[in-house]
């Protein structure tokens, strides 16, 4: 730090670095590892194949991750409770099957068919939550039973036809629609302005309440970084087909659930139940109500992910929702930095984690690497993420004494 710098700024930087070091040492690593990991993965793939970071491929990547990202958003909420939902793959498949059958066989218009598919997931999630809370069966057993049963229901709903091709353009547009770059720039501008106004209003409210201000440097850095990412992503997407509707839907869910989890009493209570359920109960929080609601959200998001996946592939069949959907959705949440132990994490980890997994799948496909290597690498990344989580937890416990 040179003497020439204004002392206030130097002080701010030093304080910022100090608090960062403290946070890392005490195990509060947040989304730092996943972002470093993502940069590393992108660098490696770009080195191996110069097409990896091309606008076309990155645009494909954003569309490829939307279904996993949406499912993972629900998983994050379940993990925040310290629970798990193993049924999301089957609910993904059943939700998409219900939509496809209503649309293709029964001729329903797109909107009610999609709504029916998604609400199927809501009903299933509520059912899981009810069994989990009413009979105190561990959530992984309830949802493991769900994994089997709802896959059976999916086969039953699809019937003998097996594969249903979706011809309704409104459904296909969910994953297939791109907005012109101009729309993207306008949206990016609106997002950045709203973010700036929000940061400014919060600073002013703190000042009005006579509270010590949050570090200005931190706010400015946050604003600059987010604005750079938003405009950078828009520029990349503008270089190809424009902004995919699917990405906007995913981001809409994430921003919505981020606000719900961090700024509403309901979200605060999710964290409380995940942190210390007994304390939450004594504070008068309806612990079971929160649990049922979160499982309902998880089921809803799983079915919504299924609808998105069906739209991308123009079809639903026996294998929709099977394979690695479930494991990728859980892995994405954990890789993104949401703790398996409950009470810690952010909805954004669904996006960052899905980006990591999507990048690995996409990059290895570009390199024509077969599935064997892909699964091993994804498994290794998941293990690394869980290890970071576990080590961070030990760090917290040490720091907590």
């Amino acid at each position: 730090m040179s003497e020439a710098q204004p002392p206030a700024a130097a002080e701010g930087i030093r304080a910022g670095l100090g608090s960062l070091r403290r946070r890392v040492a005490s195990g509060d690593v947040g989304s730092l590892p996943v972002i470093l990991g993502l940069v590393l993965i992108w660098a490696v793939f770009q080195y191996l194949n110069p097409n990896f970071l091309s606008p076309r491929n990155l645009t494909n990547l954003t569309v490829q991750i939307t279904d996993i990202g949406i499912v993972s958003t629900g998983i994050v909420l379940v993990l925040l409770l310290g629970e798990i939902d193993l049924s999301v793959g089957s609910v993904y498949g059943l939700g998409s099957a219900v939509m496809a059958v209503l649309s293709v066989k029964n001729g329903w218009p797109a909107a009610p068919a999609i709504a029916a598919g998604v609400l199927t997931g809501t009903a299933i999630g509520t059912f899981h939550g009810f069994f989990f809370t009413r009979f105190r069966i561990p959530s992984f057993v309830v949802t493991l039973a769900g994994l089997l049963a709802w896959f059976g229901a999916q086969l039953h709903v699809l019937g003998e036809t097996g594969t249903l091709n979706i011809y309704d353009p409104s459904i296909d547009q969910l994953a297939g629609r791109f907005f012109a770059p101009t729309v993207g720039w306008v949206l990016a501008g609106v997002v950045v302005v709203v973010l700036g106004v929000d940061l400014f209003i919060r600073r002013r409210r703190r000042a009005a309440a006579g509270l010590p201000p949050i570090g200005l440097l931190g706010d400015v850095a946050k604003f600059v970084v987010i604005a750079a990412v938003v405009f950078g992503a828009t520029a990349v997407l503008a270089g190809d087909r424009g902004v995919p509707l699917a990405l906007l839907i995913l981001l809409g869910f994430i921003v919505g659930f981020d606000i719900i989890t961090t700024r509403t009493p309901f979200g605060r209570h999710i964290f409380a139940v995940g942190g210390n359920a007994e304390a939450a109960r004594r504070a008068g929080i309806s612990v079971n109500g929160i649990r049922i609601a979160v499982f309902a959200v998880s089921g809803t998001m799983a079915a919504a992910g299924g609808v998105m996946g069906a739209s991308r592939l123009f079809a639903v069949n026996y294998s929709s929702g099977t394979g690695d959907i479930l494991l990728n959705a859980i892995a994405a949440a954990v890789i993104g930095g949401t703790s398996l132990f409950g009470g810690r994490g952010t909805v954004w980890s669904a996006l960052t984690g899905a980006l990591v997994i999507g990048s690995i799948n996409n990059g290895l496909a570009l390199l024509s690497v077969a599935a064997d290597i892909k699964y091993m690498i994804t498994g290794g990344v998941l293990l690394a993420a869980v290890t970071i989580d576990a080590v961070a937890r030990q760090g917290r416990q040490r720091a907590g004494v």
Partner: protein
Amino acid sequence: MRRARFRGESSQLERQPLLQLRGISKAFGAVQALSNVDFEVYPGEVVALVGDNGAGKSTLIKVMAGIYIPDSGEIWFEGRHVPVHGPRDSAALGIATVYQDLALCDNLDVVANLYLGREEVARPALLISEERMEFRAREVLKSLDVKIPNPRSPVAGLSGGQRQSVAVARSVMWKAKIVILDEPTAALGVQQTKQVLELVLRLRTQGLGVIVISHNLANVFEVADRIIVLRLGRRSGTFNRAESSEESVVGAITGAEFGKFKPQE
């Protein structure tokens, strides 16, 4: 009232008790946990409840907290006979219990813990109004002279004494008139014990009734105005701190006689 005038001490004790238990009995099957126990705490008074293991201390505070319903006996609050049928009734009267496990969420910050289950929201969006909550949280922490560097840091990073203070501050925040502390210093070091005892004295200064359960007679003698001893489910002694010795209290706890240190009543 009669007892207060009989003791003829400070004017504070002339007032009616904040909380009075009369003739409380509670049995669990064949075990008589409490037999005809009286108990009273005045505003601005620290009462220590002491006794050996199994003497009925926990049962008695759970009666006050509304967790146990006594088989017989009456609960009076501010001179009124009040029905206490459950924890909600007790909480509504302003009786707050801070148990040993503190019931804090480690992953949430101090402000969130103070407001847990009672978050303030701003209309029309119904989002949490963090600034209002943080302002009041800081006020309450300051009024109790609780030193926490940043009320926005997670509770997990606080010392045992600070955690205890946060749990106590939560009860003060929600207008408790009586705070019951169950072994508040059991797991604390010397310095942190001192912090918590100072906090107990500040609660008294603010006019609250404080009931402290403790095994540590040295701590009890530091903060308590009166010491009530339970032995085998009965009240076996009441001591004014200023006029009593540790030996006499130990005598009442164990049942041994100590000549001139005979318990009052």
